[in-house]
């Protein structure tokens, strides 16, 4: 399975600022995803990061708030813009390279606290 790293592992940010989270995979993968996990909650898909084109956002998430880049098949970034305390969550990157079963592998997550 792919080895996924995320940076930073955690951060504490001030309201109104932005934070960019990086996701690096040790091999080329077809699909990359970004999820949000609010405290004590399940995972919510933010968007699918598409290589070389705009990300595909889920209902309730917009590009202005969560811009995503995916310049190649091993790297993606998620920016959380104009942060508010409600953005305090764990942000997880996942990858899938199986055309048969949608199995996803997850990074360790980025724990974000907004004051």
């Amino acid at each position, binding site marked *: 399975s792919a080895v996924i790293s995320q940076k930073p592992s955690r951060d504490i940010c001030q309201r109104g600022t932005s934070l960019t989270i990086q996701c690096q995979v040790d091999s080329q993968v077809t699909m990359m995803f970004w999820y949000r996990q609010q405290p004590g909650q399940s995972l919510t898909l933010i968007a699918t990061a598409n290589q070389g084109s705009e990300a595909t956002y889920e209902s309730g998430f917009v590009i202005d708030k969560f811009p995503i880049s995916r310049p190649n098949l091993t790297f993606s970034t998620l920016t959380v813009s104009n942060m508010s305390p409600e953005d305090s969550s764990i942000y997880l990157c996942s990858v899938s390279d199986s055309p048969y079963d949608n*199995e996803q592998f997850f990074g360790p997550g980025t724990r974000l606290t907004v004051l």
Partner: protein
Amino acid sequence: AQSVAQPEDQVNVAEGNPLTVKCTYSVSGNPYLFWYVQYPNRGLQFLLKYITGDNLVKGSYGFEAEFNKSQTSFHLKKPSALVSDSALYFCAGATRSASKIIFGSGTRLSIRP
């Protein structure tokens, strides 16, 4: 709409006893089904998956799950629980035509010594 349900927020089991974590799904067609585990301050780890074939799927750490199409269930089981199994468990499902997977709300498993 597709959905995955985990009806129990918390399951408490004594060490050495069998455990079951319940999951039901509403996914069109023949679904892909998964179980993931999340330990404190860690990402999700893959436990097992059902794709096709044998309804009983064996996975990591001695866990297994049984796919039951008539009951639309995919319960996670282990014959003898360990204290180290205490964690948050997520059931997830996907249709065969989509790349996204849908997660259940999670069940916190607590194994007491």
